[in-house]
C-alpha cells in the first residue's frame, strides 16, 4: 500500500524543529490536487465565457471574484492539510454549536435572496451558513460516532446520530433551503453506513422516510398544512412533467436541456446563444454545468465529469488509508457530500433531477460553496497525509 518512503521521518530522531519542517514536507495526494486544480480552471474558463456581458463594463467581474475565492480556499486547504484533523475531535461541541448558531443567525439576520434567507452579507462576500455547515456537520458527525464506536449496533446510536444531523437539516429547510438539507441527510446516511450501522437500521429508516414523504407531500397538504413551499412544489411538478414549460421552473429546466443538447459533441463555443442571451437562468451558479455543455459539448462535459469522478475516487481511496475511524468517517462524509451535490446538480441541468438549488462544487460561482469545498478537500488531504505518515512511522503521530 505504501510506496512513498518518507526518509526524514524514518531515519532521524524527531526534534521539535525537525517536526515542524517535517510537517511541511508531509505528503499530499497529487491526484486529488490535480482534480481540484483542473476543476478550478474549468470553472474560471466557464464563468468567464458565461458572464462577459453580465456586469456592464466589467467582463471579468465574476471570474476575478471566483479566482480570489479559489486562492483563499486553496490557502485554507493547504493550511488544513498540514494539521492533524484528529485534533478536531476535541472541538466537536464547539463545531456543532457553531453550526447550529450560524444557521440560526443567518435565518434571523440574513438578507433575503430569491425568497429565502440563506446568507449574511459580509463586506466581501455573503456568508452562507448552510454551505459551511456541510463540512462542520461531517466533522461533528464523525466525532460523535467515534465516541460511540463500541455501541454502533445500538438503535440508540443510529437514532442520536440522525438527530444530530436532522436538527441543522430542519433549520436549513426552514430558511428555506431544501437542497442543503438534502445534502445534510445524504451526509449522515453515508457516515452511518461507513461506520458500520446494521442494515436493518437502514431498512427501518427507509420505511420511516417513505412514511414521512407521504405525509409531507400527500396527507398534510390534503389536511391543509403545507410542508413544501409553492415554488418547491412547482419544481417537483415541473420535473415530473418535463414537457410543460409554461411555469418558470419548467421553463428553466427546458432551457437548460436545450443548452446542453445544443452543444452536441464539441460545443458551440462563442455562438452559445442560450447562455449569451440569458435563456439559461443562473448560468454562473446553479446551471453552470449547462454552460459547459453548451460551450464545449459532450467533450467538455465529459472532462468535467471525469474530474469529479477522479475526486470521488480519490476520496474513497483516502477513506481506506485513513489512520483512524474518525478520518475514515470524515472522508466518507466528504465523498457523500461531493457525490450527492454533483449528481443532483448535473442531474438537474440534464433534466433527470428536480431543481433544488444545490451548487456544483468548485464549478459554481460563490464564495461559501468554494471555500466549503476547499475545506473538505483540505480535510481529505490531511487524512491522506496523516494516514501516509502514520503507516510510515508505524503509528507515530506526526504534525503539530
Amino acid at each position, binding site marked *: 500500500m505504501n510506496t512513498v518512503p518518507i526518509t526524514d521521518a524514518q531515519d532521524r530522531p524527531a526534534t521539535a524543529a525537525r517536526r515542524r519542517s517535517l510537517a511541511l514536507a508531509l505528503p499530499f495526494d497529487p491526484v486529488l490536487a490535480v482534480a481540484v486544480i483542473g476543476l478550478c480552471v474549468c470553472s474560471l474558463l466557464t464563468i468567464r465565457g458565461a458572464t462577459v456581458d453580465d456586469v456592464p463594463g466589467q467582463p471579468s467581474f465574476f471570474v476575478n471574484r471566483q479566482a480570489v475565492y479559489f486562492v483563499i480556499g486553496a490557502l485554507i486547504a493547504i493550511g488544513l492539510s498540514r494539521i492533524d484533523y484528529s485534533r478536531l475531535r476535541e472541538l466537536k461541541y464547539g463545531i456543532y454549536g457553531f453550526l447550529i448558531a450560524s444557521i440560526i443567525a443567518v435565518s434571523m439576520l440574513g438578507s433575503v435572496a430569491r425568497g429565502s434567507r440563506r446568507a449574511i452579507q459580509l463586506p466581501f462576500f455573503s456568508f452562507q451558513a448552510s454551505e459551511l455547515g456541510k463540512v462542520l456537520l461531517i466533522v461533528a458527525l464523525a466525532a460523535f460516532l467515534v465516541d460511540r464506536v463500541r455501541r454502533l449496533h445500538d438503535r440508540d446510536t443510529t437514532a442520536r446520530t440522525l438527530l444530530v444531523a436532522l436538527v441543522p437539516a430542519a433549520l436549513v429547510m426552514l430558511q428555506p433551503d431544501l437542497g442543503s438539507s438534502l445534502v445534510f441527510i445524504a451526509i449522515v446516511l453515508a457516515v452511518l453506513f461507513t461506520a458500520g450501522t446494521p442494515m436493518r437500521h437502514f431498512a427501518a429508516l427507509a420505511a420511516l422516510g417513505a412514511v414521512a414523504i407521504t405525509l409531507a407531500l400527500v396527507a398534510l397538504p390534503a389536511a391543509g398544512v403545507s410542508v413544501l413551499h409553492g415554488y418547491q412544489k412547482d419544481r417537483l411538478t415541473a420535473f415530473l412533467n418535463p414537457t410543460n414549460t409554461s411555469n418558470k421552473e419548467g421553463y428553466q429546466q427546458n432551457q437548460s436541456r436545450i443548452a446542453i443538447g445544443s452543444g452536441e459533441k464539441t460545443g458551440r463555443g462563442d455562438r452559445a446563444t442560450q447562455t449569451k*442571451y440569458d435563456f439559461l437562468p443562473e448560468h454562473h451558479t446553479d446551471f453552470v454545468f449547462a454552460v459547459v455543455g453548451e460551450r464545449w459539448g459532450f467533450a467538455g462535459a465529459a472532462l468535467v465529469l471525469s474530474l469529479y469522478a477522479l475526486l470521488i475516487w480519490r476520496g474513497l481511496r483516502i477513506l481506506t488509508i485513513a489512520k483512524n475511524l474518525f478520518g475514515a468517517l470524515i472522508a466518507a462524509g466528504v465523498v457523500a457530500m461531493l457525490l450527492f451535490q454533483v449528481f443532483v446538480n448535473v442531474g438537474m441541468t440534464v433534466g433527470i433531477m428536480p431543481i433544488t438549488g444545490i451548487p456544483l462544487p468548485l464549478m459554481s460561482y460563490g464564495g461559501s460553496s468554494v471555500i466549503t469545498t476547499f475545506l473538505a478537500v483540505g480535510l481529505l488531504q490531511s487524512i491522506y497525509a496523516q494516514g501516509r505518515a502514520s503507516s510510515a512511522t508505524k503509528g507515530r503521530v506526526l504534525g503539530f
Partner: protein
Amino acid sequence: MIEPSGDRRVPISPGLAVRVAVLGVVGFALFAVIFFRLWYLQVLSGDQYLKQAQTNQVRRERIEAPRGSIVDRNGNVLVDNRLSNVVKLDPAKLPPSEKTVVAEYGQQVIARSKRPKGKKGNPIAIPPVPADLRVRFARLANVLGMSTRTIQDRVVRSLYLASFSPATIRVGVADAVRDYVEERNDQFPGVNVDRVYLRRYPNGSLAAQLVGSVSEISDQQLKLKAYRGITSGTRIGQSGLESEYDRYLRGRDGIQRLIVDAQGNLKGKGSTRRPVTGRTVKLSLDLGLQRSAQSAYQKIAGSQPGAFVAMDPRTGEILAMGSFPSFDPSVLSKPISQKRYEQMFGAQAGSPLFNRATGVYPTGSTFKPITALASLQAGVTSPSRIVDDHACIDVGTAGQKACNAKNTSFGPIDLVQALKVSSDVYFYTMGLEAGTRPGQIIQTTARKLGLGRYTGIDLPGGAKGVVPDRAWRTRINEQEISCRKKKGGLSLAEGVAAANAAASKGCGASDLRPWTLGDNVNTAVGQGDLQASPLQMADAYAAIANGGKVPRPHLGTEVEDDQGRQLQRLQRPAARQVKVDPAYRQVILDGLHAAASAKGGTSADVFTGWPQSRLPIFGKTGTAEKGLGRADQSWYVAYAYDGSPDRKPIVVAVTAERGGFGAATAAPIACRIFSKWFSQKASCTPGRNTTF
C-alpha cells in the same frame, strides 16, 4: 502532546471494505447515469436541441405588405398607399385591470345587442380608465395632444374587437412625436410607433362606395374559413372592392427575424423575408366619366340621395357608378369616435356608405319597355295595335280608375307613341290584359331581364329587388301574419293603430291585402310593389339593346403586378341569353328614341340641340310615386352609341330620390354623362315634360 484517536489504527476491516466498495459502486452508477443522459442529449438528439436553441432566440416580426392599388381602365389611381406613423398600444403590456374593464364592456355590448330593436337603451358608455393606468394614459395623451378619455375609448373598443392585436391610438402623428416616444420607451410601456401603409384616396369622394374600406381583421373574422391563413393584426378589405378583391390586393407580409435575449431585448437582426406588395386591380371604371357624372349629379340633384350607373351594354363593364350622398373614404382610415361616425355615416347623414346604385326602388315608367317587350312577345299587343288613351281607364269591378299624370289624354296611340309620351293608359291596358291571361307575362320577362335577382356584380351587398306577383304577395302576407302573431296576435281588424304598433315591433312588411289585378296594372308601369336598382335597370335596357344578351355587370377587369404588367384577366361567367325578337326590339328602341328626340317625347327637350342622327339616344323617363306628401323619385334610363351600336355604346341609369319628374332631374344628369362620354357639347336643360 496530542491524544491518540479513540481507536488504534487497524488494517482496513473486511466490513469497511465492503461498505467502501458499495459507496464506490453507487458513485459509479450515478456517474454512469449522467454520462448516458449526456450522450443521449448531446450526441443522439443534439441536432434537435440545436434547432430549438436557434429558434429560441429568434422573434418573427411581421413586415406589413403594402396593399395593391385600385386603378381605373386608363391606369388612373383610385386608391393607393401612403406611409403614416401610427401609435399603437400592445395589450400584453396593459395591467389586468384594463382587461377586466374591457371584458365587462364587451359583456354589456353583447347584452345590449341581444335586446330587441327600439328597446336597446342607451349605447354602452366607455368605462373610465383604471387607476393604475391613469398616469400612463395621461402622459401619452399629453404627448399625442388628445384626451385620456379618447385613448381609453380607442383602447377599449379595439381590444373588444381584437383582443390580442395592438390598439391603434392615433394615426398620422408627426415624426417628432414618433422620435420622442421611441426615445423614451421606458416611460411609455407597450407604446409602439409603427410605420404603416394607409390607404390614400387621391380623388377624394370619387367612387367612394365602390372602393370600400380596410381595417384590421376582427376576432370573429379570424375564426372564419374565408380568412384562414391570415394572422391577427393584418389589415383586410372590409367592404366594397377592397373586400371583393382582397385576396389580390392584400399581398404577402414579410418577416423580419430578430435576435432577442430571454427578456425580449433586441440583440441583432436575422434574415428577412421581404414583403410582397399586393396586386393592382384594374377596374372598367372611367374616372373622367365618373368625375363628370358625380359633379353633374351634384349640380342638378343637389344634396338629395340618389345614384347613377353607366355601363358598356356589350360586356357589362361598369364605366361609372355613383351613389349620393357620398363621403371622403380617408376619414375611415383613422380611428373615429362612435358619435362622429353616427354624425357622418348614420341615417341622419343619409347613410353615405350605402351604395344606392345597387339599392332598390320603385322604378316608375322606366319599367315600361319591359312591359312592352313582355306584351309583344306574349301576343298581348302588337306594334300596330292602337289604344285609345282617354286619360283614365277602369280597373277592377269596384270602379277604381287608373289615370295618366295630370290626367293628360293622348288619344289613339300605338306602342311607339305610348313609349314616346309615356302613356300610362296604354301600359295599364297591357297590365290588365296580361293579368287576365295565364302565366305571369310581365313578371317572367322582368325576371329574365335581371330584375328580382342578383346582378352578379363584383361588389358585396346589393339587393335582389322585388318583381311582385301572386305567389310573392301570398308569401309576404304569411310572413306578416306569423310575425304579428309572435309579437302580440294583432290582426288588421284591430285597426290601423294596432297595425302600426305591430309594424314598429319589426313587422309591417305587408298590409295583408290579397293580390289583385290592380297590382298587375301597377306593376306594368313600374309602380306598386315593384322594386329594382339602377344597376338592374341598366342591365335590363342593355339586354334589350343587345337583342337578348343580359350582360353581367362588373368592375374588376384585370389583375396587374405593381409595375402595371397584366397578370390575369378576371374571368366571369358567360352572359345570360334571353329570347328577344329583333322586330320587337326595334319597335321598343324606336319608341325610346322618339321619347328622347321627337317633339313631344318625354325627354326630348332635355336633349335639345343634341345630334340625334350621329348619337342616337334611346331613353325613358320615370317618376316613381312614393305616397302622400313625399316627393316623387326621378328616373332616367337610356342607351346610346356613336354612329353604330358597336362604337362606344353605353347604358346609363340615373335616379334621384326627390327629383320629381324623370325629365326634371334624372334625364339632365344622364344627358351630361352622355355629353362627357361622347365629348359632345350639350345644354342638358331640365325638361318641362310632366309625364310619368
